[in-house]
């Protein structure tokens, strides 16, 4: 029983990786969420014993998920009306932002030995060039 559920979960993981990397006429998110919900249901009902447990536990758990749905739905219904303000905020500061110009090319020159690429030295902090775009 438990091994069968593990098999189903692994199978669904493969399915979601495949569908996630394929164009599905804009239905990608919906399909990914349906698969994730099936996986979550398997874990909750079998691994977490909700199928045999007191129904109140399932009621409470599903209740919390429903309230997350309410939270999501209410937030998403009015988020659209602030987007113009956010865009305008970005646009207003565009002149002073380094991103108003195309990103500069990576800093040329020899930085350390490339043979040790992937080493964990703090190369992010010790720029001595002025490669960043300060206008």
């Amino acid at each position, binding site marked *: 029983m*438990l091994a069968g*559920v*593990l098999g189903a*979960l*692994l199978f669904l*993981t493969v399915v*979601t990786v495949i569908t*996630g*990397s*394929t164009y*599905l006429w804009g239905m*990608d*998110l919906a399909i*990914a969420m349906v*698969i*994730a919900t099936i*996986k979550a249901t398997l*874990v*909750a009902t079998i*691994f977490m014993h909700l199928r045999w*447990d*007191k129904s109140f*536990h399932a009621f*409470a*758990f599903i*209740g*919390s998920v429903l*309230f997350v749905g309410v*939270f999501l739905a209410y937030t*998403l219904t009015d*988020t*659209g009306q602030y987007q113009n303000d*956010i*865009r305008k905020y*970005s*646009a207003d500061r*565009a002149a002073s*932002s*380094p*991103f*108003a*110009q*195309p*990103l*500069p*090319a*990576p*800093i*040329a020159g020899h*930085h*350390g030995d490339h043979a040790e*690429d992937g080493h*964990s030295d703090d*190369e*992010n*902090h010790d*720029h001595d*060039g002025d*490669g*960043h775009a300060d206008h």
Partner: protein
Amino acid sequence: MTTASADGHGHGDGHHDHPKHLAHHFDTLEQQFESSKLGMWSFLLTEVLFFSGLFVVYATLRANNPEIFSFASNFLNTSLGAINTVVLLISSFTAAMAVRNAQLGETSKLKMNLIITLLCAFGFMGIKYMEYSHKYHSGLLFPGKANAEFAEGETSASLFHPTHPMVPHAGHHDADYLMLKEYTDHMSPAERVHTMETLGRFFGIYFFLTGLHGVHVIIGIIVITWLLKRASTGEFGPDNFTAIDLGALYWHLVDLVWIFLFPLLYLIA
């Protein structure tokens, strides 16, 4: 059993006229078990609500910037994410098996399943470390403070910093940067500013979601280690498996959160 509280002084012989694992304030083992379980489920539903705030932030950002989110997921390594999903699913299975072992009093199998669960948890964090360190070196970090002070020529560690964005050295962790440059080169200034700001927010929510989940994994490691220590005394059996049951419930919740995080972050087509 009603006399149990009367001779509460000293743990003499008369004290043990109730099942070994029954606390005094419960009437029966059954009642004690159900109370613990109700408490655990109450905790789990607060955990769902705890994570929900971050999921709502994610949904809001994505709903308004779908194409930027689609681009951003290119920076995440799908293979590592998928491996971590498999690792967590296997650990969830062994945790469920551990509950079964405890119920049947199979101590050695119980210990084995707890150890596998623990190894998977460490494996998950190891892969997480690889992902995080790659992002750190590439500058794929949350933007940081706009008014932070920088010395002359110094930059932030983040590509998305609003005033001092990092620029990598050629040939040194610059693959992600070049992809980003190509994507933004043809944009209008306002569009580029908006895109870079939104990408910064994407990595902000990425690190908060996976980071909060990672903290849960670390807590899970502590809990499972404690369970393993108790299991090695052979104390778990048919009339005493509550701790294993509740520990496994917590671990399954960690798995549940990841089941949603993986497609939402790594698999945006």
